[in-house]
């Protein structure tokens, strides 16, 4: 595939730049809406990162506010705020990545062993359902289950004679709620991806193993798992590349402005959002955001470099 690309593409230009431009006029014009879109909504905000180096006031605007150098960053570091946000964001993501991938792979492998296609289809559909709903509804579903006064689980625990902990005011146990909600929402999605990868395994290998008398455990251990190794490593590396990016919708709809929980549930995105909407501290919000962008960029580059070394077919660029 790559070879054929190289043959037709990048022919030495026999003509000048303007000639080439004219030759490809229509294709270029077809790209213009997308180019403008990313110019206005992705590139245009970039100079605005300057806010992170100012003491922003709304009337002065981005470039009319006094310049303060690195002071916002210094404050965030010395106050421990940035460390806390970074720790929470990274730890949650690590749990999501590790637990999530194990569960997704586990279910995909199991589903692959089921002969009844109808069963596979129905369970996959049901598991995929939570992926379709808004974060707002996820927040409400969780509230429905665990709130102390009326929650379904509180009620269940109470009817069995126990006492439900007040989860919404307990920063030590609330992370578990977030993790379960996240796994609940993302497992179906990941299972579909892994299931597709497993279906891509050469069927003749499975059949040969069956003929040779390998049982289910042996087939999983010696065929499915080794065949998935590549996919797992690559998904894992890219997940590491995105480890400083949090799932804003989930966290904000579960925690909101419930400050009792911040110490263990505040992630970079929720902090930045509050800086914009509640505390109007645009400078510090921007500083945290810029730190996240730069750090995240470096991580993606490193992850991509490693993937490229392992298997250049899978690298992003």
């Amino acid at each position, binding site marked *: 595939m790559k070879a054929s690309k190289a043959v037709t593409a990048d022919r030495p230009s026999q003509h000048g730049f303007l000639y080439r431009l004219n030759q490809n006029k229509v294709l270029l014009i077809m790209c213009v*809406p997308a180019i403008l879109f990313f110019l206005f909504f992705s590139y245009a*905000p970039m100079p605005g*990162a300057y*806010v992170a180096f100012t003491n922003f006031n709304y009337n002065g605007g981005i470039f009319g506010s006094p310049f303060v150098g690195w002071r916002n960053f210094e404050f965030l570091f010395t106050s421990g705020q940035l460390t806390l946000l970074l720790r929470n964001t990274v730890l949650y993501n690590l749990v999501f990545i590790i637990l999530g991938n194990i569960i997704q792979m586990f279910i995909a492998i199991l589903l692959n062993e089921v*002969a009844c296609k109808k*069963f596979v289809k129905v369970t996959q559909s049901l598991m995929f359902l939570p992926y379709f709903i808004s974060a*707002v509804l996820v927040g409400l579903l969780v*509230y429905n289950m665990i709130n102390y006064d009326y929650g379904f689980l509180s009620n269940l625990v109470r009817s069995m004679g126990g006492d439900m902990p007040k989860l919404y005011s307990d920063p030590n146990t609330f992370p578990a709620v977030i993790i379960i909600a996240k796994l609940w929402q993302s497992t179906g999605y990941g299972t579909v991806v892994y299931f597709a990868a497993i279906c891509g395994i050469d069927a003749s290998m499975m059949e040969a193993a069956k003929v040779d008398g390998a049982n289910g455990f042996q087939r999983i251990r010696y065929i499915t798992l080794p065949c998935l190794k590549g996919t797992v490593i690559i998904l894992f590396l890219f997940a590491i590349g995105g480890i400083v990016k949090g799932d804003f919708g989930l966290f904000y709809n579960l925690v909101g402005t419930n400050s009792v929980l911040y110490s263990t549930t505040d992630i970079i995105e929720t902090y930045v959002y509050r800086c*914009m909407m509640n505390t109007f501290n645009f400078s510090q919000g921007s500083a945290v955001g810029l730190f996240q962008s730069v750090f995240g960029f470096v991580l993606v580059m490193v992850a991509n470099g490693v993937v490229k070394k392992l298997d250049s077919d899978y690298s992003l*660029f």
Partner: protein
Amino acid sequence: MSKNKEVAVKGTRVKLDKADMFIRGFTYVITSIFALCCLFPFLLIVMSSFATEESIRRTGFTIWPSEFSTFSYELIFNAPDMIIGSYVVTIIMTLTGTLVGLFIIAMTGYALQRRDFPYRNKISFYIFFTSLFNAGMVPFYLLMVQVYGLRDNYLAVWLPLLMSPWLIILMKNFIKAIPHEITESGKIDGAGDFRIFLTLILPTIIPALATIGLFIALGYWNEWYNSSLFLTSKIRYKPLQFHLYSIVNKVAALKSSVAGSMLVGVSLPAETLKMATAVVATGPIILLYPFVQKYFVSGLTVGAVKG
């Protein structure tokens, strides 16, 4: 090929030993439990939306309420302009956004996969780079509000959801699978690039359009984030999910959502009202889900393969 497979499967059915039986039984139990866990919270919301407020006060949210009532739905639809307005806003945004976004994405995806388009790598990188690095939320917010002046403007919600680098790459990979000869034959017949795209390519990529269109539509339908940033209380008709967000989180919004209706001498059924609004706001997407989910699955599996 598939016939062979069937024969092989039938052949092995005889040899099902204890390990296989165990794995199968285990799978049926575990996946059934998990699938039910995925469904249960939805049932709970629907059932509790039909409960009376007193029964929830007494026994909490249950899967079979002790007293049924449609009071909260009556409240919502007694002064229906709020919910209908939200529906109209959301449907218009979803339809127009999906059509416009899909057209631009398909056009761009087609141009970028053309092997004879010399700028394709540069433009691809220009688009792709935005997913690697961004300025962060604050500069984006300030630009939208202070420079573009889009506060309290539906465009602030509509525009950013039109496309994403990921969807363009996905479309590019879809179109790449179509033989280049189609384009060549169009060229020989003297058709221009845009005409080739419109008359020869678009009809052949309908499954891709369905998949990517559904991703865009889902983005619009579930949108609440940009609304919460850019739409203040001056906007009466909020997009549905943002309407739900306001009702869940703000007592004032909850009260005003049923303003002017029959709440004289009766306390506001806050809990059931939240649940009923959730059902009304999410219902259509759940009802459509069985018909559209296969397109999502195909999108995921294509998207997982990098081209």
